[in-house]
């Protein structure tokens, strides 16, 4: 079946100045501007954030440790060389954890970036690697914090159990003849 949805974007969120960016999920959007707003509305209503990135899913080159170890080679196209540019590296550090920002490096292809990442961040126990060109990131700006993120801090998160609807309904029922 053909996918009639809009393109998907990976969402990365930073919850504090000293925290690394973490993968948070994906959103559909017709373009990067809407993707950033959708990311805010879907993921950052709560908890808090200081920065948000969206990256087209198609731009992310991903490999597991196993595939890299077996030297089975990358995906077709990942080795195509361009002018050297900055690549961002994320790594999944445990089965449960979301991918975490590890750093950036310069490379002339996704595959070269992946190989360089494995070497540069070898002290991390990475289960799955993600690399993508930094130029494809759409990021929130520092001046966005006030309108995009801060209002959420004043909104208490309530679970459905915080409302006493059932108790109230039961009382009403028992009161009725």
């Amino acid at each position, binding site marked *: 079946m053909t996918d009639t949805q809009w393109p998907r974007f990976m969402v990365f969120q930073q919850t504090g100045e000293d925290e690394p960016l973490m993968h948070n999920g994906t959103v559909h959007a017709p373009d990067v*501007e809407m993707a950033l707003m959708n990311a805010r*509305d*879907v993921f950052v209503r709560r908890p808090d954030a200081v920065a948000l990135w969206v990256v087209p899913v198609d731009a992310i080159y991903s490999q597991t440790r196993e595939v890299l170890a077996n030297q089975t080679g990358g995906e077709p196209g990942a080795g195509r060389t361009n002018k050297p540019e900055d690549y961002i590296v994320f790594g999944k550090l445990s089965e449960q954890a979301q991918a975490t920002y590890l750093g950036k490096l310069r490379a002339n292809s996704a595959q070269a970036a992946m190989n360089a990442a494995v070497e540069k961040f070898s002290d991390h126990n990475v289960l799955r690697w993600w690399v993508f060109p930094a130029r494809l990131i759409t990021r929130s700006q520092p001046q966005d914090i*006030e309108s995009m993120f801060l209002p959420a801090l004043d909104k208490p998160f309530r679970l459905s159990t915080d*409302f006493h609807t059932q108790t*109230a309904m039961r009382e*009403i029922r028992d009161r009725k003849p």
Partner: protein
Amino acid sequence: MDMDQAEKQAFERYLLAMADDELILGHLNSEWCGHAPLLEEDIAFANIALDEIGHASTWYAILSEFTGKDPETHPDHLVYFRDASDFHSARLVELPNGDWAFSMLRQYLFDAYEMVKLRELERSRYLPLAGAAAKIRKEEIYHYRHTSAWIKRLGLGTEESHRRLQNALAALWPYTRQLFTPVAGEDLVVSSGFGSPSEVVEIAWREQVVPLLEESGLQLGHLSNLVPVVSRYDGSREQHTPHLKVLVRELQSVARLEPDSSW
């Protein structure tokens, strides 16, 4: 606070109009929850609806405090146990939802109104109002960014999205005038430094929305020929659309079944 009775009542009407507009619009927009054209926007539009109801609750609390009522309980009383005829909402926010373009454009026009009005109210001499305005405006800046992005995409999108948006504009525009109709006694609110003149808000609003609507490919030329539903000077928010009564009845139905229950 050194105010006479007329000044106090005027300020109460001023606050009540603000609160009721936000409550009714937020309530109507919440109807889109589960029905918006895509999941992400379903969440976003429900967020915005909830934000507006939150703003209403802030204005009701400020009004309660101003009138010496309990800001914790009196807002509920105003929302759930007041007759529809005592609401001060503008007719623009009472109109039932139509298509997506209609609801999005109404929210956009209202966000622009709220954003420019809050900028004025940040300077209110009534400090609780000034403080809340400054806080809420930050959130409104995001609302405006979100809804204006949608208006541009609908206006410049497909033939169908453009047509629907243009139709929505023709339907909504005559109702916008009432947002800038001074509530009775507004001159007293202005002279006390508590609120700002509707005229100032209207000029700022037009400067905000007209270029954006034009940039979105909409035809505005004929709008000046549309007769406003209320003129700027008939003053009153006591006349409502027939829809308000139905909406308020539904909104209050559960609360009125068991007025003493605590939910």
